């Protein structure tokens, strides 16, 4: 069908406009129908688009909506591009998105900004679809910026709280820094390739038309943009703060979809990254380091959402590790499985928070397994999935990543694998820690809270169940093979196939070790762990302080910048130069007026003398020069 992709993209936009403009007036029922109905409708259209794609045997579908600008000999079009990769992304975005919209009905019930919330959420869907379906970097960038905007609006949703508003601002500004690099990369590519359409960029670079240095530079710049959006070192600082937003927002935007935009970008431009090994190495290194450090921080966090936030950063690091060693399809695979179990975890956390009427500190939870069984069940399933225990989803994708980190012919090394495995261990450890502290053991809740513990409504638990089911079966879709025509898998540099089997066994053992360690350390409310930490006070302090990165940025960047803004821009530029020149002009006028006013002194003698003098001057001038 013609215009199918355009319809897909415009549906959420219509939802935004309807809910944003008239939602408040037409009541909750209308908001629900539009706000939840439209994402499900969009999911239907996405399925249909995918079916059409498959009917054409995977040949990309291109839809041009309109020509944005014609400048000289260059044409900039708004066009959509559907191939297997973007189809997968679109399905995840609309599918998981629709589920989370449904969940929000229960979670946001009674909130004053109900209509506004669904409007923003639909707006986010619109921009995200622009991002994944755009053919050119330009359209992608529009979507990129747009999801940043939606994220800002939703993080600071309860903007009356200054801290939450500040968190939204921090997210937006940090993203902006990345976007500056993104733009530079775009300009570089455009200068050398002459077009911004990504399929043509891949072709041009793959055909060797672009010098390696240029490709590397552009690749690195675009990756820096990706670190901003996908919360990698050094621009990861906004994601933990973003937990100030409502939990479904954290699930959708900061777990399943927006933060994966960076991964999608690199995967989409795989043609460029294949020709830029230096850039790929950088991506792999940053990915694994981010994964490792985030995992260590997650180990000591006490807010349930913060643990999951750092977990997200860590898993994104894994995805970038895979991208860095050339395993693009595997990275997308992990993105796919991660969307399900991370969304399940976040929504489960939301359910817990909802049950405990707002409590988020895991030190004040415990023993909830019996009281909120559905939440517990789905949370447990998702935890096992993320830990990487077979045959759940996380096992397949994470194992593939670890395998390629050592075995890839495009940059796989042992120490990447070592760090990756340690991180996998830590992942299992902190996730099971979370499970134990929240759901097992004796209750450490406030008595008041404990009395009101209740299971969430079916709109919430139903979604949890669906996501938990997918967390189980998602790994059984052979996504890397499905994407192989598009995103090749790298060659394995080991001749003997037995290494892979050994790796698999090792990975499973590592995950089980994590489970056992967590069970031992964190039973009984975490007392054995606390005693263990007593011996490593300093380390605990560093981890709890998130390696003091925010403080470093404040000291190294914000303070000097504030000084420059105050001294140079405000005092010098604004007050002295701009205001000063205006005041100066006025003062000049006043001064000259005062000087001229002195001529009118009121003294007749002075006036007569001036007449005399004027007469002399005129006579001289007339008789000498005329």
């Amino acid at each position, binding site marked *: 069908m013609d215009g199918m992709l355009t319809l897909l993209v415009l549906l959420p936009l219509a939802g935004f406009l309807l809910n944003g403009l008239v939602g408040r007036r037409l009541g909750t029922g209308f908001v629900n129908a539009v706000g939840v109905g439209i994402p499900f409708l969009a999911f239907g259209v996405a399925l249909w688009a995918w079916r059409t794609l498959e009917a054409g045997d995977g040949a990309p579908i291109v839809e041009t909506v309109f020509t944005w600008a014609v400048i000289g000999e260059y044409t900039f079009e708004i066009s959509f591009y559907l191939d297997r990769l973007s189809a997968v992304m679109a399905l995840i975005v609309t599918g998981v998105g629709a589920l989370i919209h449904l969940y929000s009905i229960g979670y946001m019930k009674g909130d004053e900004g109900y209509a506004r919330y669904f409007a923003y959420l639909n707006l986010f869907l619109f921009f995200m679809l622009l991002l994944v379906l755009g053919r050119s970097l330009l359209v992608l960038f529009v979507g990129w910026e747009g999801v940043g905007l939606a994220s800002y609006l939703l993080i600071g949703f309860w903007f009356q709280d200054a801290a939450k508003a500040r968190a939204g601002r921090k997210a937006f500004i940090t993203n902006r820094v990345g976007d500056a690099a993104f733009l530079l990369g775009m300009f570089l590519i455009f200068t050398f390739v002459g077009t911004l359409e990504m399929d043509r960029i891949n072709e041009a670079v793959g055909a060797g038309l672009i010098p390696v240095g240029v490709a590397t530079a552009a690749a690195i710049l675009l990756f820096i943009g990706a670190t901003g959006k996908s919360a990698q070192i050094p621009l990861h600082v906004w994601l933990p703060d973003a937990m100030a937003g409502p939990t479904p927002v954290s699930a959708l935007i900061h777990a399943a979809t927006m933060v994966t935009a960076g991964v999608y970008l690199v995967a989409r431009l795989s043609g460029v990254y294949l020709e830029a090994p230096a850039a790929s190495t950088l991506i792999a290194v940053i990915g694994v380091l981010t994964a490792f450090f985030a995992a260590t921080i997650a180990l000591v966090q006490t807010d349930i959402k913060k643990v999951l936030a750092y977990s997200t950063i860590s898993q994104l690091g894994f995805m970038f590790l895979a991208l860095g060693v050339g395993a693009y399809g595997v990275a997308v695979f992990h993105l796919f499985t991660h969307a399900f179990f991370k969304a399940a975890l976040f929504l489960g956390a939301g359910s817990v928070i909802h049950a405990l009427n707002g409590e988020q500190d895991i030190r004040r939870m415990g023993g909830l397994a019996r009281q909120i069984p559905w939440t517990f069940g789905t949370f447990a399933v998702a935890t096992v999935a993320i830990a990487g225990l077979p045959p759940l989803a996380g096992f397949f994708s994470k194992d593939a990543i670890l395998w390629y980190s050592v075995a890839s012919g495009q940059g796989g090394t042992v120490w990447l694998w070592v760090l990756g495995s340690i991180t996998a261990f830590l992942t299992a450890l902190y996730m099971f820690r979370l499970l134990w502290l929240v759901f097992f053991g004796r209750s450490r809740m406030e008595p008041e809270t404990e009395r009101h513990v209740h299971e969430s409504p079916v709109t919430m638990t139903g979604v949890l169940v669906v996501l938990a089911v997918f967390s189980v079966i998602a790994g059984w879709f052979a996504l890397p093979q499905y994407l192989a025509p598009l995103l090749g898998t790298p060659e394995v540099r080991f001749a003997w196939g037995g290494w892979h089997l050994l790796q698999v066994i090792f990975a499973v053992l590592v995950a089980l070790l994590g489970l056992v360690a967590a069970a031992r350390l964190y039973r009984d409310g975490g007392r054995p762990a606390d005693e263990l930490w007593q011996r490593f006070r300093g380390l605990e302090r560093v981890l709890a302080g998130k390696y003091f990165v925010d403080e470093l940025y404040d000291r190294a960047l914000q303070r000097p910048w504030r000084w420059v803004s105050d001294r140079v821009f405000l005092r010098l530029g604004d007050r002295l130069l701009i205001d000063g020149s205006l005041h100066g002009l006025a003062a000049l006028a006043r001064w000259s007026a005062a000087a001229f006013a002195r001529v009118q*002194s*009121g003294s007749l*003698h002075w006036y007569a003398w001036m007449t005399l003098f004027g007469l002399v001057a005129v006579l001289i001038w007339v008789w000498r020069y005329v």
Partner: protein
Amino acid sequence: MSDANLLLAVSAMLFTLGLVGVVVRRNLLVMLMFLELMLNGVLLSLAVFTFLLGAEAGAVLMFLVFVVAAAEIAIAVPIVLLLVRAGRTLDPGSYAGLKG
């Protein structure tokens, strides 16, 4: 130097003395008199040229200037009188109220 030039020089001197007198003297009535002196200086120059050109128009103009001078003095002196009655002094330095 011919007669005409001599007289024109005298006329210039009278005019200058009249103008400088207005600048220099500190009595309103004396300043008025110096204005009359200026006018006389100009009249002398007019007379010289009337004589040189033999033009009747010059003589008529001189007569009309007399008329104007008379009218002018008829207004100027009462103004000074009123001013002095209000300000109680003939010193123009005291009348600096219109300074800018």
